């Protein structure tokens, strides 16, 4: 079963990833590219500007956001990150990498009825805090955790 699933997705390539996300109820196919591109937020060089421009300004830290990231990245080019918002009425979630040249990595709008859980992979240039921001009931919240990026080797 696992082997079949893996083969299918390999052959489907990048489309497979989107299919998987849609299958998991994360996105409805029609909505994938529906949101307007927020150029200002995605090209901001500073994490606070990026948060403000993405409409997460003034986010307060919340323990109701569970952020799961590796302590040390196995590969800075594809760092797996996972976030769950337990805040009622969550309508969007976004990831920021403080020390990336462009800190805003992705902004997910969650159609009503969607479980506020995002699992994705992000690119990190160096050791940095990763932030996830949440909008719920018109207010903004955040949680952050450091991920170490190292050149590797020399262990053991």
């Amino acid at each position, binding site marked *: 079963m*696992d082997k079949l*699933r*893996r083969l299918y*997705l390999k052959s489907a390539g990048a489309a497979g990833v989107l299919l998987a996300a849609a299958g998991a109820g994360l996105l409805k196919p029609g909505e994938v590219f529906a949101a307007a591109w927020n150029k200002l937020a995605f090209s901001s060089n500073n994490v606070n500007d990026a948060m403000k421009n993405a409409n997460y300004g003034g986010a307060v830290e919340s323990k109701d956001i569970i952020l*799961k990231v*590796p*302590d*040390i*990245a*196995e*590969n800075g080019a594809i760092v*797996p990150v996972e976030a769950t918002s337990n805040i009622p009425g969550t309508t969007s979630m976004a990831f920021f990498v403080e020390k990336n040249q462009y800190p805003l990595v992705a902004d997910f709008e969650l159609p009503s009825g969607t479980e506020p859980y995002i699992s994705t992979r992000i690119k990190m240039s160096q*050791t940095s805090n990763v932030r996830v921001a949440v909008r719920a009931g018109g207010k903004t919240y955040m949680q952050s955790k450091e991920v*170490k990026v*190292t*050149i*590797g*080797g*020399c*262990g*053991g």
Partner: protein
Amino acid sequence: MSMSRREFLQILAAASASGFALNSRAALSASSGSGFYDLPPYGNVSLLHFTDCHAQLLPVYYREPSVNIGLGQSLNRAPHLVGEKLLKSFDIRPGTSEAHAFTHLDFAQAARTYGKVGGFAHLATLVKKIRASRPGALLLDGGDTWQGSATALWSNGQDMVDACKLLGVDVMTGHWEFTLGAERVKQVVDNDFNGKVDFVAQNIKTSDFGDPVFPHYIIKHLNGIPVAIIGQAFPYTPIANPRYLIPDWSFGIQDDNLQKVVDEARAKGAQVVVVLSHNGMDVDLKMAGRVSGIDAIMGGHTHDGIPAPAIVRNPGGQTLVTNAGSNGKFLGVLDFDVRDGRVAGFKYRLLPVFSNLIEPDAEMAALIKKVRAPYEARLSEKLAVSEGLLYRRGNFNGTFDQLLLDALMEVKGADAAFSPGFRWGISLLPGEDITVEHLMSQTAITYPYTTLTEMTGATIKDIMEDVCDNLFNPDPYKQQGGDMVRVGGISYTCDLRQGMGRRINNLMLGGKPLDADKKYKVAGWAPVAEGASGEPVWDVVANYLRDKKVISPRKLNLPKLLGAEGNDGIA
């Protein structure tokens, strides 16, 4: 300590003082009544543990570190105690066999007195003896077993796989095993180990769907008591070692998943839960404080031979943390007294394996002879004589590493050299021949390529800072458990009070400050990047040794340490 053991230790001390080599196998005999290895049975669940033997089938010398610095919460706590500080902390008398086993003190002299340590034929006898008094005892192998020797490399780990099956290993986890490649590990686990050895790891999953690669744990029944052994493989294998060897597997510490696995094992009726760990002891200690419901974490990776368990309190009660050294030098024996479904008491001993005191097991000795036979001529080639003590272990450098650095710089015509901070690699006493086998014990890896790279002074500093942070990051979960990269040709200071990027200063090459923008030729080996190539390091160094014939005592390139006052991790 029993009276008879104390008497025996006094005999050892006396023998040491008078300079006689110890060679009394009667010490092991149960009938003599004064056996060093007579452990009165205790409780009803016994676990035997060895780890990080690095494929040393034959007895070796292995010098413990004189520099093993702990900072922050690790300051002056085990495992970051060396020499007399360690002896004092664990109440071990100086000048005894145990003082020799656990420290570097008077190493060459004491090694001549007490002889070599470990060896699988000797370990096999000891395991059989301990098992005889503890029916049903499990033997746990913490990993780093299939790598570290010429024969393990040349047989693709098969010599160790066969030896471990004969030794009677019940449960195993891994680290360097994975550098033989994912397919090879799966092949052994699915075939050689099938129905005999359980390979467990709760923290390895496929990188696409997060499916488990190995069983997370196994429940064994010991004297009718269900005991769960959970595997914790080295969390940073794809970072410290080449990722391309295990391209589809993801690791990490995963203590939330560990909590789930512990809870699941308890729900299935496990009355004792033990984690067989390759985390490294600092990570084990942190993990023990965060995860509840574990009776003991039996660990390895950082090669710390710690005489007594650390007891860590956590929300669920307490967890013992033991670490059992390396190179076949120790066998850990953990006895639990389980009553009314829970652990009511424990006893732990970390037994040094003194080869001279143990009659080798005939069957294991025959297997070792057989696996070595095809390679014997190659292994025994004498390359040079070493005038000084050669060893590797220590936070910043060892004489064997200095020898590798000297060889790399001379042969490659480099300004400077880097050699990885590996903790495996045996020791050689002054006056011993350096054979091919000895050289391979420092270099036997599946990515042995030497490199010569032009690097700017800024890049050199960045690399040194990065590796230094792997050693001294205040969060154990952000350490990788290796030592500092060994540096040849460049002197530097290391400020232990500083953080990442600010520890390495005053870099000097040839009497001049290192220029951040100038390019230097830097030799190295063991690149983790895919596609790297170059002459194997053992060939480069073997040619150097044949040419030199006599190796004078090495002058260690060590950094000047700042902020090291009062640190019990420095002898």
